[in-house]
């Protein structure tokens, strides 16, 4: 191993040496610069590997041949090495990104860049306070220099503002350093730690030093100067500024915090949280991409600062957590800045141009997932461990603030991603070139590699090493194949996985697995209709399925949570594919993340920081905590099942999704929430909070969802929205059943799991097929399609009979179990809502079939054909299944019934032959079916005998209002179909919940918009902000000390 000091020597030496080379041969100079940076990167990477594998010990480098504290010394441990590698790689790629201005301005600019990278590296390595100052000043001056590389004239103003603030920082820092020296007689950080401090001004000295370093982190709100740099500098430099300078400055704070002592940590936490939450709120209203990234950088640095402030409780995990967050931030932010070089326009919507290049979309998605902390990236592992540690230390408020900040951050990041995927792309919006794309992809590769490393280091569970996630990666690589080939592979993958795992599951998991995995395969049959390559669909879909597969496999909290997040991410990308789904996908993502954070907190409280915590030990949580765990987990799961109040994402998300996506996210994805609820209630059982039985609350929520979901469904004009609201209602039933906490309630919920999957998938596919032909989802624009699309009609008919619970189809079984369940429950009032929801469900279902398939055929539709065979095929499978399941419900339910019996210790149902009896009643599905068929056939034969020769008449062979109609539009009664109902019950349609959530988001946005006026652009004001910030923190800190 070569000495790490060579990193400094190479940087500096090359910078000096450039002056000796010919100014004219710019390409050569540039190559030399790149080579130097590459060499620096190679050395630091070598150290990373050596330190991580234990091949080398932490390097202590003495200068001047004298041991510290008398001479400056440097240190390279694993953390330093990792940062050095990040810095030098960022430097290398940024140099590539800045190739044009570097070549234009020549060796001076290259030298400045080299010195900048060298200085940032020095800042990481040095253990001497004053040396730290020197490196910071070098960074400041080099920054002022590199900012000038931007073609943007505003960069000059930005550079000047930056210098003004640097002056203030320098003044504070020097005073801090000299008085620290006076107090301790040493400038060496490790030496200071070891020395007892006598001088009572030392606290103030430490404060000045710390605050100077903190200001260097651009804390909100004293950071207008930094934002201007992000906005106007060359993106290559901004990448460096955010990724390298920011990380190194954080590391400097960490070093100083070590000797300053734990008393200062709360202050750092406070500043960090303020910065994180504040700048994210301000960022909400930002439309300039680079400035947005600036806000996000400030926020991320604040987050890590808060983590530094929590180091006292993080213990051994500190490096893992802080490192995970810093590296995620560095890679993602650098990647995004580099990417911004290929986008011509500067508003967020201009990023729609990247859509033309699939790898860039992948890159964008990767970076955003990294920033938000989604699996499989390091931030995810860090977030998990952080939550565990914070909760274990009883610092729940801090965790809540952090999660709030992440949520707000994800709001604007995912909104931005939505713009990129959905907005109109301007002509020539892309300045695509190989180099910029290349370095962006390098960052992507880095991100995935880090994800792998963090997964390995986590020890418990490496997301990327699981077969389902590997399959997702494989599908990413298979993207160039045609869609049909990928579809075959996807179906094979799902079935293969199911065959592999099916043996080990208990009956309940088996039902869920069957619905999620082979169930997904059946829906995928419909995807054969798609031609071309269908870029993006398969990785997203497989990510969702991977999440679901892992969810069923999960044995610990962490595995469960990881699976949950993967599923969420995959489904978000799927939903976003819909034509008009941009806002809905966003709200889906935000609600899902919010729900996931509730899960995170709930799991953390439950485990009390013990890791790994087995999922089946959830029941052992302390009795006083259990209700809170219950609430948090329930909220998390109910977000997924779209219980009333948390449902507003669902209608849009499901309705606007693609034809084959809607059944996936509706028929399959919603079951994940039910699965979670089952797991939770199985372990926690009934819990009371403030004297209220929480399962009663769930029962009420279920009943209200079932009722209001149905009411809202009948007022929809859009067929898919109608089905979406119907899902809310159906999930309400299932939630109701689970929350009854008795055997039959659970059995009913399981029945809903199966039934809802089948008929909702079927109906979505059917409506999707109609949409494919008619190009509209508005039901009143259709009508009379029965003869043109008979198969689709049959599937809708069977679907609505099944869903409404009319015998003889399988929905009736659910109702029958439901009645038996409530006989046991001892609950009365919520039932009223459920009773009412039943017939209301009938209303919207009738509307669905009537307005689409019956009534008057419209002129533009006269030549329509049946839906594509690939869409009809899975529907027919579902029809067959529904009929089979109606006759033989035992084939799926009997085992589950036994399993649930083993949980509750009772066996209320008696399965004798094909008949089922309970304590209260009985049900013989075969007999029902036979009686109905026999009667039906008999009556039909009578009619046929008389009317077999009935004359087929034409469409308008009716008389209406004393004339024969000729326009289908005026004759088809479809729009506002249940007008009387609206008159009577329309008040239930008041969008209370949407108004509430709208108010919340508007409020936060308003705060952001108001706050950002603070950044008035005046460099002097920014300087005043900095001083104000320092003084305010001083007063608070001293108040805290006093």
């Amino acid at each position, binding site marked *: 191993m070569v000495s790490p000091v060579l990193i400094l020597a190479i940087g500096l030496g090359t910078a000096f040496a450039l002056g000796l080379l010919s100014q004219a041969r710019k390409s050569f100079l540039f190559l030399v610069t790149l080579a130097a940076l590459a060499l620096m990167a190679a050395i630091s990477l070598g150290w990373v590997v050596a330190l991580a594998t234990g091949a080398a010990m932490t390097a202590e480098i003495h200068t001047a041949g004298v041991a510290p504290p008398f001479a400056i010394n440097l240190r390279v441990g694993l953390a330093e090495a990792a940062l050095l590698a990040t810095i030098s790689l960022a430097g290398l790629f940024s140099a590539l990104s800045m190739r044009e201005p570097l070549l234009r301005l020549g060796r001076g600019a290259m030298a400045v860049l080299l010195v900048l990278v060298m200085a940032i590296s020095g800042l990481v390595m040095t253990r001497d306070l004053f040396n730290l100052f020197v490196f910071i000043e070098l960074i400041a001056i080099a920054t002022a220099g590199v900012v000038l590389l931007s073609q943007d004239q505003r960069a000059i103003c930005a550079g000047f503002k930056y210098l003004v603030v640097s002056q203030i920082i320098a003044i504070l820092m020097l005073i801090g350093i000299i008085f620290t020296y006076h107090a301790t007689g040493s400038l060496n950080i490790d030496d200071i730690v070891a020395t007892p401090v006598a001088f009572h001004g030392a606290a103030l000295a430490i404060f000045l030093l710390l605050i100077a370093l903190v200001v260097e982190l651009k804390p909100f709100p004293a950071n207008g100067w930094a934002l201007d740099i992000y906005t106007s500098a060359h993106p290559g430099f901004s990448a460096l500024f955010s990724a390298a300078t920011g990380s190194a400055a954080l590391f400097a704070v960490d070093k100083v915090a070590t000797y300053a002592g734990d008393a200062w940590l709360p202050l750092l936490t406070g500043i960090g949280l303020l910065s994180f939450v504040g700048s994210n709120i301000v960022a909400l209203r930002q439309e300039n991409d680079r400035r947005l990234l600036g806000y996000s950088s400030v926020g991320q640095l604040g987050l890590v600062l808060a983590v530094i402030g929590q180091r006292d409780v993080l213990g051994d995990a500190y490096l893992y957590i802080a490192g995970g967050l810093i590296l995620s931030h560095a890679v993602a932010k650098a990647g995004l800045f580099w990417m911004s070089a290929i986008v011509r326009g500067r508003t967020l919507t201009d990023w729609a141009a990247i859509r033309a290049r699939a790898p860039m979309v992948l890159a964008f998605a990767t970076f955003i997932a990294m920033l938000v902390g989604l699996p499989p990236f390091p931030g995810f592992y860090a977030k998990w461990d952080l939550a565990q540690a914070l909760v274990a230390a009883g610092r729940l408020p801090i965790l809540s603030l952090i999660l709030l900040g992440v949520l707000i951050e994800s709001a604007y990041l995912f909104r931005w991603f939505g713009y990129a995927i959905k907005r109109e792309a301007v002509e020539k919006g892309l300045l695509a070139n190989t180099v910029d794309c290349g370095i962006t992809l390098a960052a992507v590769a880095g991100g995935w590699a880090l994800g792998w490393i963090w997964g390995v280091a986590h020890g418990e569970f490496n997301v990327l090493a699981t077969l389902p996630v590997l399959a997702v990666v494989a599908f990413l690589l298979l993207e160039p194949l045609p869609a049909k080939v990928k579809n075959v592979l996807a179906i094979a993958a799902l079935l293969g996985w199911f065959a592999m795992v099916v043996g080990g599951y208990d009956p309940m998991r088996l039902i869920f697995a069957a619905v999620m995995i082979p169930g997904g395969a059946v829906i995928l049959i419909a995807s054969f209709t798609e031609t071309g390559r269908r870029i993006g669909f398969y990785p997203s879909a497989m990510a969702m399925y991977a999440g679901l597969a892992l969810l069923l496999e999960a044995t610990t909290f962490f595995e469960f949570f990881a699976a949950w997040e993967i599923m969420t991410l995959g489904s978000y990308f799927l939903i976003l594919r819909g034509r008009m789904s941009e806002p809905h996908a966003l709200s889906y993502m935000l609600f899902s993340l919010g729900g996931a954070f509730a899960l995170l907190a709930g799991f953390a409280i439950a485990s009390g920081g013990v890791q790994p915590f087995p999922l089946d030990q959830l029941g052992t949580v302390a009795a006083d905590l259990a209700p809170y765990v219950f609430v948090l987990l329930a909220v998390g799961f109910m977000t997924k099942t779209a219980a009333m109040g948390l449902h507003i994402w669902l209608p849009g998300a499901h309705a606007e999704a693609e034809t084959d996506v809607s059944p996936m996210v509706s028929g399959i994805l919603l079951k994940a929430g039910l699965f979670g609820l089952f797991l939770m209630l199985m372990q926690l059982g009934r819990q009371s909070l403030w004297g209220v039985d929480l399962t009663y609350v769930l029962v009420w929520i279920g009943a209200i969802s079932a009722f209001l979901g149905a009411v809202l469904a009948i007022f929809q004009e859009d067929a898919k929205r109608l089905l979406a609201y119907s899902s809310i209602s159906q999930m309400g039933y299932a939630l109701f059943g689970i929350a009854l906490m008795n055997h039959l309630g659970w059995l009913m919920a399981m029945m809903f799991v199966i039934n809802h999957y089948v008929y909702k998938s079927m109906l979505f596919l059917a409506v999707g097929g109609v949409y494919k032909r008619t190009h509209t989802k508005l039901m009143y624009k259709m009508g009379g399609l029965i003869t043109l699309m008979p198969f689709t009609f049959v599937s809708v008919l069977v679907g609505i009979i099944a869903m409404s619970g009319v015998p003889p189809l399988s929905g009736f079984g659910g109702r029958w179990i439901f009645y038996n369940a409530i006989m046991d429950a001892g609950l009365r009032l919520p039932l009223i809502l459920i009773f009412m929801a039943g*017939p209301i469900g*009938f*209303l919207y279902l009738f509307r669905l*079939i*009537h307005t689409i398939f019956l*009534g008057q055929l419209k002129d533009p539709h006269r030549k329509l054909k049946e839906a594509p065979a690939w869409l009809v095929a899975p529907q027919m499978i579902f029809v067959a299944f529904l009929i089979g399941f109606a006759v033989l419900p035992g084939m799926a339910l009997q085992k589950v019934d036994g399993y649930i019996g083993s949980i509750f210790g009772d066996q209320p149902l008696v399965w004798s032959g094909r008949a089922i009896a309970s304590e209260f*009643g009985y049900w*013989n599905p075969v007999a029902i079916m036979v009686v109905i068929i026999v009667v039906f056939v008999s*009556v039909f034969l009578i009619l046929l005998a008389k009317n077999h020769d009935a004359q087929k008449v034409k469409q308008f062979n*009716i008389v209406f209002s004393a004339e024969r109609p000729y326009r289908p539009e005026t004759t088809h009664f479809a729009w506002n179909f249940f007008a009387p109902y609206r008159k009577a019950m329309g008040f239930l349609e008041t969008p209370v919940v949407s108004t509430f959530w709208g108010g919340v988001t508007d409020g936060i946005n308003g705060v952001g918009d108001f706050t950002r006026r603070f950044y008035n652009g005046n460099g002097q004001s920014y300087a005043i902000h900095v001083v104000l910030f320092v003084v305010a923190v001083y007063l608070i800190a001293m108040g805290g000390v006093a």
Partner: protein
Amino acid sequence: MTFEWIQVPYALATLFIILNYGMLMTAVVRKLAARVGGRPGIPVWQNYIDLVKNFALRSKINHGVMYYLGPVFRLTGGIGLILFVPTIYGSSWAQNFSFSGDLILALYFIFFGTLGMALGAGESGHPHSAIGVSRGLAQVTAAELPMALAVFAIALQYQTLSITGIVEAQQGGLFHWTLFTNPLAVFAAMFAYVGTMMRSPFDVVLAPQEIPIGPPTEYHSAYLALMQTNRVIFPIAKTIIYMNIFFGGATTWAEFAVKVFLLYMIPAVIGVVHPRFRVEQSIRFFLKWGLPVGILAILTV
């Protein structure tokens, strides 16, 4: 209870009795209503004449498959409902196929015919049929609610969902009837009974048919015959359920005849003295009056 072949002729016999009883009784009720209005009314065998005439009609048209099947669904619903409910308590042969399912089956099977009919009428393309369906469905959601609550209340009361079980529990005298043991539930259920018998004030659903161009004219010949058949047996089937669970059931055909007639008269009487509600008015009515009674019923069990 299990299936034996002898149950088939037994069930057919029950069906035959009910059909004829229904034919006559509905005619009688119409005649009574006419007399109240000072008109002579129809002869009591009028239903038979109509039936025969309709079956014999030779002019018949067809709007499509669902149109064709609509009456089949409708009548299947009526017949099935009778077959799933035991008619006479204690009779060895009038139990029909009630082993197939309990009260819940009966309650949900009511919708079978409604659904089929609605679909058939829908395919005719006539807007009035759609309007009628829309109104009917809207009204029934509110009207059925007290019934559902009442059923739940008495299921709790008797701790069974089996119709036979409920009837059994009411044996042993007038005051064992649900009517007296749980008057609230019965009161609530009667809201639903009156509300779903297609009589005034809750018969606005039929209004589009009254203009002489509605679904009944679209449905003609044997279609109409099937519907008419259903029209006489379906109210009886429904009344049987009410009789069984609220009014002690019937142990003989005579008791059956009397109870059904009296029950059937309730909506008829209410109907002749009340004007029509609009749909939203009837919805509000059921929510305002029927629902609270139903809630009281389940809360006081």
